[in-house]
């Protein structure tokens, strides 16, 4: 009887306008009823050819453009670009500026993970975590208001330093926020992380084994969720990270298999706590001194090339710059973590349910501004 029923596989377009494709990702699903046989992601709807723009503007001018790569973590992008250019030019960055940049980057990491918490909850069907995540993110955004005068595109780190010094009031506001965050973190877990429905939705779904994750070049929480303790802040320490005490959080398969959606989610939640710890240490140990080095107004870089990688909230953010002696790069290549992370979607989202595809996509946590560049 069941065999005699004629069923068809249908192709469904999920996106580019869809509530949970994180902007303008388009996924083509081959579905058999509720089962998804295969997923093909189509990207490029937000493509601005940043790498071409980089060739047309100077090193200093490209800094605000990096804000718009992963627009949820622009402080991290600024840090990466500033470090890459400094590496080529051997500009000595004052110690205080280094610490301030890391402070901004870690605050931004918390903000980015909070947003990820919210949207992931939303994709699971719970609306309230979204608002709680945004509530705390709003506090961070207000701190950035005071720190650099912008709410999303911070442009805080500059080549050779940072834009502005940290005022005592802002430092106090950050401390207040960090204490608040500790309390809220517990609440988040009660509301979402430990909720049995949520656990059942995410545990054992979209499992990425460690070797597959490495082969696909996944980085960040997606790789660490698979149990690989790889964090560039530890593996190839940069800035002031060697002086800071923090842990690399990895997925342990607490609720299911190692490398499932819940693990990736949980790594992000743990990283929020680690970042809070880092921020406290930075506020305690912030060295005095100038915050901006002497940088010529027209910054010419001799022919050279460097690949500088930093740990952005979504993974390894790399800037590969080839300079040619002018004030503009000859070629700038951006290794966007989301781009690499998204490439595994087709591989892991097979023979799962429609709802699982959403959860897998949410747990990879892509930002299309970065995928499409």
């Amino acid at each position, binding site marked *: 009887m069941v065999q005699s029923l004629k069923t068809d596989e249908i192709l*469904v377009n999920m996106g580019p306008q869809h509530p949970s494709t994180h902007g303008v990702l388009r996924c083509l699903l081959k579905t058999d009823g*509720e089962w998804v046989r295969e997923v093909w992601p189509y990207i490029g709807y937000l493509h601005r050819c940043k790498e071409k723009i980089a060739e047309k503007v100077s090193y200093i001018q490209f800094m605000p453009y990096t804000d718009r790569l992963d627009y949820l973590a622009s402080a991290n992008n600024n840090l990466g670009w500033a470090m890459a250019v400094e590496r080529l030019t051997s500009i000595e960055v004052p110690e205080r500026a280094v610490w301030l940049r890391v402070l901004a980057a870690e605050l931004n990491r918390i903000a980015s993970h909070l947003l990820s918490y919210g949207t992931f909850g939303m994709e699971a*069907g719970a*609306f*309230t975590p979204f*608002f709680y995540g945004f*509530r705390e993110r709003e506090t961070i955004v207000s701190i950035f208001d005071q720190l650099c005068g912008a709410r999303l595109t911070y442009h805080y780190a500059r080549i050779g330093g940072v834009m502005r010094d940290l005022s005592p009031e802002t430092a106090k506001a950050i401390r207040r926020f960090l204490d608040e965050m500790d309390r809220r973190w517990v609440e988040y877990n009660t509301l979402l992380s430990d909720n049995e*429905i949520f656990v059942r939705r995410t545990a054992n779904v979209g499992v990425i084994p460690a070797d597959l994750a490495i082969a696909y070049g996944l980085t960040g929480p997606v790789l660490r969720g698979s149990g690989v303790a790889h964090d560039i802040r530890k593996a190839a320490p940069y800035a002031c990270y060697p002086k800071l005490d923090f842990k690399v959080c990895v997925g342990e398969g607490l609720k299911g298999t190692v490398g499932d959606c819940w693990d990736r989610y949980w790594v992000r939640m743990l990283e929020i706590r680690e970042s809070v710890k880092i921020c406290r240490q930075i506020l305690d140990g912030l060295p005095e001194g100038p915050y901006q080095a002497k940088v010529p107004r027209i910054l010419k870089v001799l022919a050279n090339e460097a690949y500088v990688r930093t740990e952005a909230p979504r993974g390894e953010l790399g800037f590969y710059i080839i300079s040619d002696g002018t004030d503009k790069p000859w070629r700038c290549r951006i290794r966007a973590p989301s781009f690499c992370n998204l490439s595994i979607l087709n591989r892991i989202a097979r023979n799962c*349910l*429609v709802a699982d595809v959403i959860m897998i996509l949410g747990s990879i946590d892509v930002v299309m501004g970065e995928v499409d560049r």
Partner: protein
Amino acid sequence: MPGTLTDIINYVIQTALGVVGLDYARVPEMLRIGAAMLIACGAMLGYVAVVALFFGWAERRVAGRIQARQGPNIVGPFGLLQLIADAIKILVKEDIIPQTAHRFLFRLAPILVFMGAFAPFVVLPFSETLVVSNLSLGVYYALSFAALEVVGVIMAGWASNNKWSLYGGMRLAAQMMSYEIPMGLAVLTVAVLSGHLNLRTIVLDQQGYWIFSWNVFRGFPWAFLAMFVFYLAGLAGSKRTPFDLPEAESEIVAGYHTEYSGMRFVIFYLSEYATMYVVSALTAVLFLGGWHGPIPHVLAWDGQVHWEAGPVLSALIGMVNMIGKSFFLMFVMLWFRWTYPRVRVDQIVYLCMKVLVPLGIICLMGASAWALVW
């Protein structure tokens, strides 16, 4: 004493006509019943609209406060008139039917859905006297009409000619069909305990010693468990979180009403709240003593009636109790919605077949044993 709402309406009409010197008894009986029914249904329709508007507001307000924001608070006191403003806005909106949609079925679907949601109101008792039609198979009637909604939703999903709509429709069909089983089992538990299928009689049976004569405590633990089975199954039947798969926004956009706009969308919206109310009210009637309040208006602590409120006062108290209970249960639905994530399509069937149905059977068997013992 008049039996039902229609009787009351007839009585009122008769008295009113009597004042001007007309004899209402001369009008054929069929006409009299018809007129009374029509008026009663009109009243119910108004009530449904008010409930839906109120809960449309309450949902947003509750959601707002739970999510640490304000919720509607500009239009009217506490934003109470917000939904009326929205209704006016929606009424003037363009009514769009997709070009590739099946026009007739597309138009018919919301009506069917609303019929399914509205029909059970006819048998919901608000007090001993305030019930539109005192059917002897009241529960059965309510449950069977709820199934009409499935037809409407599948129709909407199919006629929209949109793959997401179709997904929504099929999901709802699977969900409602399976959840009618535990719902039926929970109802049967009550039927066994009280021996009736008439909602009014079921409530009358629960009269007595404070709240301990309510089914939920009288048939403890079976009816207590059955209440959860019924409420959860009802939650699934009214497509509320955590069972809102047919309109899961993050997965299938808006499910079966993706393509609907304007007035037709409002009808879907209205029927969702109507279904929620029906489930809440049925839970109150079947398990929570219906119109009997925690402070009884019929005092009978030793089996003998010591004090009884007059018919009008009694009806009023009963109505307040009944609406209060239903509204509380509806609030719980809102509260659930803004707390829980959504379950997956296999889990919803798992929950039904492996949790609620066995539990329902256990309840039924236990209640039967109790009925045999006592």
